[in-house]
């Protein structure tokens, strides 16, 4: 929606570190796919080759936001500039969203080297927002490193974050039924680093042992399991070190693989989006006709789809 000249000026301001321009650029990538493509080109980001992209995920209420805030404080001590994307769910009914992750991040206020942006999931699955990758590109181009994305509180098998991040931190807490859930859930597989937060709770040690046992039943290496009390900053330094260690030369291969996978997935998604957009334009009436046919019991969904896929769709 923005003109080329405006986008170029915006991109330049973002690279200069203008916080207002950065905020506007994030609005563009969230709302305008065509503008996002032009903006990212103008920013000259190479799809995430620079900043360490860290995903923080886990069930609701385990302390993800508190941990992210504490990690940001730990990185600030090392002089890092931290970009944070905090995703919360959009209501499928009203289209509205209540984005409350900043509540736990108040201690970071007033520091120009920390930039926090809340994103509504807007119907995307996997605890992310469709714009999360692009938004991370923008923060990367603005010089923030690491860029931390906190997902919606997720359930059992949400793997989008593992595909979007270089390093995925899974946060769990003792109790809340997590113990049994974690044993059988697909969630454990996404973790590069596992954090048991609220470790001052009585059943914490038992929970950690149960997690260790769950991993011992699996093939492959067990990720580090670290205990924190994020609200007091305890154990957070160790988590920060474990995250940073993923970029050490001897460990970098895993991150490289992740980046390739991310680039592959993003290209495919963008091709699918563009093709769907142009392909369906002008086919609305035929689609309606096919849908009527399906509801009237004249043909199956698979047969209707096959007609479209083979270019044999017709008005009924």
């Amino acid at each position, binding site marked *: 929606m923005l003109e080329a000249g405006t986008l170029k000026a915006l991109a330049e301001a973002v690279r200069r570190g203008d916080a207002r321009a950065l905020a*506007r650029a994030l609005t563009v990538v969230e709302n305008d796919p065509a503008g996002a493509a032009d903006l990212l080109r103008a920013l000259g980001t190479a799809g995430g080759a620079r900043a360490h992209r860290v995903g923080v995920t886990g069930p609701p209420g385990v302390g993800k936001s508190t941990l992210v805030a504490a990690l940001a404080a730990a990185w600030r001590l090392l002089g890092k500039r931290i970009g944070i994307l905090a995703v919360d769910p959009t209501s499928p009914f009203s289209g509205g969203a209540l984005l409350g992750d900043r509540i736990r991040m108040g201690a970071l206020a007033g520091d120009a080297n920390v930039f*926090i942006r809340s994103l509504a999931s807007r119907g995307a699955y996997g605890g992310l927002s469709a714009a999360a990758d692009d938004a991370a590109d923008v923060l990367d181009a603005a010089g923030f490193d690491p860029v931390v994305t906190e997902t919606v509180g997720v359930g059992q098998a949400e793997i989008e974050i593992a595909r979007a991040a270089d390093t995925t931190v899974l946060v769990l807490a003792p109790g809340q039924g997590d113990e049994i859930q974690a044993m059988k859930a697909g969630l454990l597989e996404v973790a590069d680093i596992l954090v048991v937060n609220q470790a001052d709770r009585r059943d914490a040690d038992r929970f950690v042992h149960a997690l260790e046992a769950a991993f011992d039943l699996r093939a492959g290496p067990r990720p580090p399991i670290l205990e924190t009390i994020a609200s007091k900053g305890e154990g957070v330094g160790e988590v920060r070190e474990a995250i940073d260690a993923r970029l050490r030369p001897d460990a970098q291969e895993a991150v490289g693989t992740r980046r390739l996978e991310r680039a592959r997935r993003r290209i495919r998604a963008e091709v699918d989006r563009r093709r769907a957009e142009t392909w369906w334009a002008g086919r609305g009436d035929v689609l309606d006709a096919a849908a009527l046919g399906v509801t009237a019991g004249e043909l199956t969904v698979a047969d209707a789809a096959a007609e479209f896929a083979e270019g044999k769709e017709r008005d009924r």
Partner: protein
Amino acid sequence: MNDVSSERPIRVLVAKAGLDGHDRGAKVVAAGLRDAGFEVIYTGLRQTPEMIVEAALQEDVDCIGLSIHSGAHMTIFPRVHELLAAHAAEGILLTGGGIIPAADVRALEDLGVGRLFGPGTPLAEVSDYIREEVRARRGASSGTGS
């Protein structure tokens, strides 16, 4: 409402300013605005004007809604208004509510603060006001090419 489905969602920062420690009202408003289809960023208790404006700028919101019950409205609203102006962000609608005497409401509105709502205002009145005001402001800014 159907005509707004393709429109960029309206983003509102709801903040509880000042030192009083109850935010039930602010939470009710935040949830109500969400249900009206807005993306509401809720920042919690004891926000300073500096924190409020910083968050509003990072979040690129259309509107700031302040809840003030501490009697500090004549300090906080003007300060937020002044900080927005200092960042050339007067385009952000500043509104809010609380227990605010009519004379103060007039004084703040004269200053350029948007409508202020008293206790018991129906949420639909608040969301309608924000929607209309934000649409007008978005229309005005796209007309000038910014």
